[in-house]
């Protein structure tokens, strides 16, 4: 994980409720999807609700089997919800067939038509919409230019590389000017270098076309660098929705904190909640120290709780009375830009500190040293579960 703090792509669209007169592009309401019937049935989505704003780069992030692709397929119309409803700009599309929705998909496998040329692939949607040939030709040319594939116009799809197929798939889905573009892990088949290129390319395309992008991925880094907002999903549920910065700095659930970035989990006691001071809670750590922590959305009862601190939000020191935590240094791992210190805490459990390296200077800590840990002010986040 290279620090997402530095990337800062967030437009601050945060929060579920935007401007009231700005109707969301996609509104998913209590959607449940069950595959099969009887005892063998599988609940792929469990009462999911999400609003996706217009012109937003919205990412569904989660491990495989979390339901993100199912949700995408429901929006595309390949499957229909078991219950609940999906609105596109205010009108119910829950049961419309895919060919009646102004929504297009970029498939993970690209799904280019092998019996058609690059240009025929890109023009297919417009042709099916019954556009005149001259308009289709002009639009195909514009799309080829947009994805920088002008030279490949009359090639067969078998004659172009994976990255080029990706671009054709994008152009094909963008050509009919959909209201929402769905992208199902489109970069997963590309090698690392090409993937980085396409990430930038996708952001550029989204900016240039102004189309709402709904992006599905299991790659948290991809999600953090590209998205305006992210919905983290697991086991058919949406656990948290927010800007990349929100999700990284203020995870509200154990799964979210664990899935995105590296995290230290600490058992603590919630002593008191100061309602006035911006949701600041007072925590008593296992070491006996008291620190302030951010509260997640919703109510958290006082008593035993779990708090998280990112490894880069703590500093290793010589043990001192004011240290938040103390322990023994177990392992030092040098990563070039920074060093990871694995500490066995005196109060039980483990804690990792990540500190940036200065040039030609050892950190000054050796395995076996007694160390103290200072947690940055405001870096502690309380979890709901």
């Amino acid at each position: 994980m290279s620090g997402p703090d530095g990337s800062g792509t967030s437009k601050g669209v945060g929060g579920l409720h935007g401007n009231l007169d700005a109707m969301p592009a996609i509104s998913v309401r209590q959607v449940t999807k069950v595959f099969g019937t009887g005892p063998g049935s599988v609940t792929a989505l469990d009462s999911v609700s999400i609003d996706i704003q217009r012109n937003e780069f919205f990412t569904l992030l989660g491990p495989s089997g979390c339901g993100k692709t199912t949700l995408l397929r429901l929006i595309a119309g390949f499957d229909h919800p078991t219950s609940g409803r999906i609105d596109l700009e205010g009108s119910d599309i829950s049961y419309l067939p895919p060919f009646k929705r102004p929504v297009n998909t970029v498939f993970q496998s690209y799904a280019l038509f092998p019996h058609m040329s690059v240009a025929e692939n890109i023009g297919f949607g417009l042709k099916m919409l019954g556009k005149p040939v001259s308009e289709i030709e002009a639009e195909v040319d514009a799309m080829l230019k947009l994805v920088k594939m002008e030279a490949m116009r009359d090639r067969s799809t078998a004659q172009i590389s994976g990255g080029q197929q990706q671009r054709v798939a994008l152009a094909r889905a963008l050509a009919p000017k959909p209201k929402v573009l769905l992208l199902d892990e489109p970069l997963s088949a590309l090698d690392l270098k090409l993937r980085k290129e396409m990430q930038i390319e996708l952001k550029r395309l989204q900016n240039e076309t102004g189309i709402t992008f709904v992006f599905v991925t299991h790659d948290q880094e991809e999600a953090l660098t590209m998205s305006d907002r992210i919905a983290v999903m697991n086991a058919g549920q949406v656990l948290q929705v927010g800007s990349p910065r929100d999700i990284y700095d203020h995870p509200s659930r154990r799964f979210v904190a664990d899935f995105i970035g590296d995290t230290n989990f600490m058992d603590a006691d919630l002593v008191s909640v100061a309602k006035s001071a911006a949701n600041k809670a007072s925590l008593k750590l296992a070491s006996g120290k008291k620190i302030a922590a951010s509260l997640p959305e919703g109510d958290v009862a006082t008593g035993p709780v779990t708090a998280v601190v990112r490894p880069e939000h703590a500093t290793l020191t010589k043990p001192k009375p004011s240290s938040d935590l103390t322990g023994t240094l177990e392992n030092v791992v040098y990563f070039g830009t920074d060093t990871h210190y694995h500490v066995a805490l005196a109060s039980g459990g483990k804690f990792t500190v990540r500190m940036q390296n200065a040039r030609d200077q050892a950190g000054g800590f050796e395995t076996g040293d007694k160390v103290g840990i200072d947690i940055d002010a405001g870096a502690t986040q309380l979890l709901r579960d």
Partner: protein
Amino acid sequence: MTDTAAVSQPPTTSGADAGVAARRKDVRNRWLLASPALTVIFFAALGPLLIMLVYSFLQKGAYGGVVWSFSTDGWFNVFLKRDIFDDTLGFADGHLSIFWRSLKLSLGTTILALLFGFPTAYYIATRPANLRPVFLFLITIPFWTNLLIRTFAIMEVIRNEGVVNTLLMSLGVISTPIQMLYTDFAIMVGMLYVYLPLMVLPLYASMERLDFRLVEAGYDLYATRLGVLRRIIVPMVKPGIIAGSILVFVPSLGAYVTPRVLGGGKNMMLGNLIELQFGQGRNWPLGAALSITLLVIVMVALLFYVRNASKSGVKSHG
């Protein structure tokens, strides 16, 4: 094979001679290994074919068989006939109408088989993988039954006192039975029943390989169900359509039992005409010439298949 033989030799000057020797031995071994197959092909296929070709250029014997003297009468009579009274030349319209009926019924059967077979194959190909063998087994069940029995079963269904007519009459839809048996319709139904699996199996084979994500992509890009069928599914399963059509068309063209049983005596097809010449007609040269004509028609159909299959084959390797 020659490659491996060459590679196994060290690349020295003496190796070149050894390479030639090895290659010769290789060629000899190949012929030896192929000889059982070649023997069967010669005696079972090429030999009889040659006999037919020779017979078609001989004179007919008075009581069947052939007289060993050269004659083109057999071929002459395939398309033309000489009037018995005034010796004028005319087209053998009896034969031509049988050719025409054979082509018409075979094409009709092929089209019907495609219409019934396509949805069937599509249905099977879209079932869960563990259910598909069950459906395929059901499709092949008729193959386990004797052709004659199957044909008589169809007869039982469509004859005047058969299942269909009895049912329609008891429902009051019709008052007198519809004559279905001994018509061209009966022949087509019979051939459809017998040859349908030959359409379904190759169609299924192509559809099973079809990437159904392409179908979804079609729907996603505003193609209706008909549009997806026409522009995505049909072009991609075309090799299966052609293979199935050939497999139904070719045996239909030469069908013998089905037109004999279901068509009665009057609705002859090519197979029956050929049988007639070798039997009651006692005109073996004409029968041989007709057989070879049938073979030529089949070859033309196969040529069409090979050309189309190789053309679409290049594109489907995507």
